[in-house]
């Protein structure tokens, strides 16, 4: 899962560094993730993992690190 998330971060995040070089808990916003790129990333995650983020997850925190994204996805997958 983490590899897929990293691929989507590379594709959608428009960051100056490769996702490979970003730690699981590193702050993606500090790495240059903009609000709009975060939205693009959110939509790509939904499509790839076939989930729909509920309203309570549609915030800045959920997409702030690779680990927090994985946490949200785990929660959704378990509930499904």
């Amino acid at each position, binding site marked *: 899962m983490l590899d897929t998330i990293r691929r989507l971060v590379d594709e959608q995040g428009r960051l100056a560094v490769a996702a490979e070089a970003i730690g699981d808990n590193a702050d993606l916003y500090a790495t240059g993730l903009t*609000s*709009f790129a*975060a*939205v693009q990333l*959110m*939509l790509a995650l939904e499509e790839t993992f076939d989930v729909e*983020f509920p*309203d309570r997850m*549609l*915030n*800045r*925190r959920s*997409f702030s690190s690779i680990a927090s994204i994985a946490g949200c996805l785990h929660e959704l997958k378990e509930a499904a």
Partner: protein
Amino acid sequence: MCQACDSFLDRLFAKGVLHETGVDGLYGRGQAFEAVIEGMDRLITRLAEGDHAEVIRFPPGMNRALFEKSGYMKNFPQLAGTVHSFAGSEKDHLALLDNIHNGGDWTGGQGATDIVLTPAACYPLYPIVARRGQLAPEGGLFDIQSYCFRHEPSKDPARMQMFRMREFVRIGLPEQAASFRESWLERARGFAETLELPHHIDVANDPFFGRAGRMMASSQREQALKFELLVPIESTENPTACQSFNYHQDHFGELWGIKTASGETAHTACVGFGMERLALALFKHHGIDTNGWPTSVRAALSL
């Protein structure tokens, strides 16, 4: 007529403060209303005296190509208004008249013009600033005003579809944008106190569209990028935003390629006065007849 059961809007109509047009959110303005708007305009100008902001006034429409580039349709498609016009043949014209006569859809053949209705007073400003090239070390400061359009018909008089927005816009270094916003938050409190309006300032978000918008909105709040000065008008639980204080970070600087003197992407901030909302707040709290308003408020507005 029963005073108690008439809505605030009904009373404004009855006294000719506003004039009904048949469309919610689209009103004519009476003499008393305009005198209040003019008084506030002068008061705001006095607040900013000494800042030496460059004055620009805009018509209610903006260049469609620049509007498209602004990204407004990404975030607020539900609020935008475009200007369309007839561009058909004589035959098309006859069909159009026929449709009007028969109550059919006559607008289908209208074509988009190069103009869209301005959604926020600062939108037409950024491309003008960008065209001038790199900013001076002191950055830019602008005093702008425009009629704005937002498609949100409502019986709440404070939610008009066409209204004036007076703005001050700061363009420059992040610190310049931040201190500009701080100083206006302070001035706004003084402004509301002078006008004796009950108010408070709170973190806010723009009405971004859809699920992506929910995320944009929560992100805007978490970063405290937008504050509003709220005054109860139609309700105490949901007070009306009469002024907003926005920090766009480098969003517009990046989008329009605005550079500071040292070549960095410029940061921008704006403070907006919703002129109609402020006027309505005054009519709500001080009464429909401006002659009965507190002497100090009348003096501040040179009424």
